[in-house]
């Protein structure tokens, strides 16, 4: 339960910081800033989703984590790592052919990694994970 509360508190703080950044007029809406905001929103969205899932487990008096959930995270992480290598390779390839600044490309890479991890996690949840 402690980890769930921490997840929600950290997510709320990150969102509040993002809101402050936008409301204080520092957000100009260029590609780089949109990418940065997207990274934050995707990561916070995933954290909130996991937090809600843990909270529901807690309400059903189940452990918030067990061997399956740990295995799903491990498998999704390893898959995402492999795929991310190709993403960075692709970003390196297009870096010479695009006018985007380096920090925008790095932002895109981080957002891509977050999305890849989320897709892998969904895939492992959908298809299961066997030791076969």
């Amino acid at each position: 339960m402690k980890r769930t509360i921490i997840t929600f508190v950290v997510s709320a703080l990150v969102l509040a910081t993002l809101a402050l950044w936008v409301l204080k007029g520092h957000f100009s809406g260029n590609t780089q800033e949109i990418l940065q905001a997207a990274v934050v929103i995707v990561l916070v969205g995933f954290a909130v989703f996991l937090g809600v899932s843990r909270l529901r487990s807690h309400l059903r008096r189940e452990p918030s984590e067990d061997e399956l959930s740990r295995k799903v995270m491990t498998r999704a992480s390893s898959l995402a790592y492999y795929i991310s290598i190709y993403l960075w390779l692709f970003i390196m390839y297009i870096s010479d052919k695009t006018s985007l600044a380096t920090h925008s490309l790095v932002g895109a890479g981080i957002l891509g990694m977050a999305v890849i991890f989320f897709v892998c996690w969904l895939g492992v949840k959908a298809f299961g994970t066997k030791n076969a």
Partner: protein
Amino acid sequence: MHNRIRELRAKQDLSQLELAQRVGVRRETIVFLEKGKYNPSLRLAHDIAKLFGLPIEEVFLFDDEVLEA
């Protein structure tokens, strides 16, 4: 790997949630096990078999054993 969890659970009139709570895992894990989407650890397999009062090999069956049966 195949298992008889659904069948044994039905015999003992246990819900997925009750079984999950008794062996200390999430209900989702029982769902995955029954659908054959997850092979349990030796510890979990042992706990489930013990709960049903059967040896592990009577609850969890390898594919070739199922074909032979």
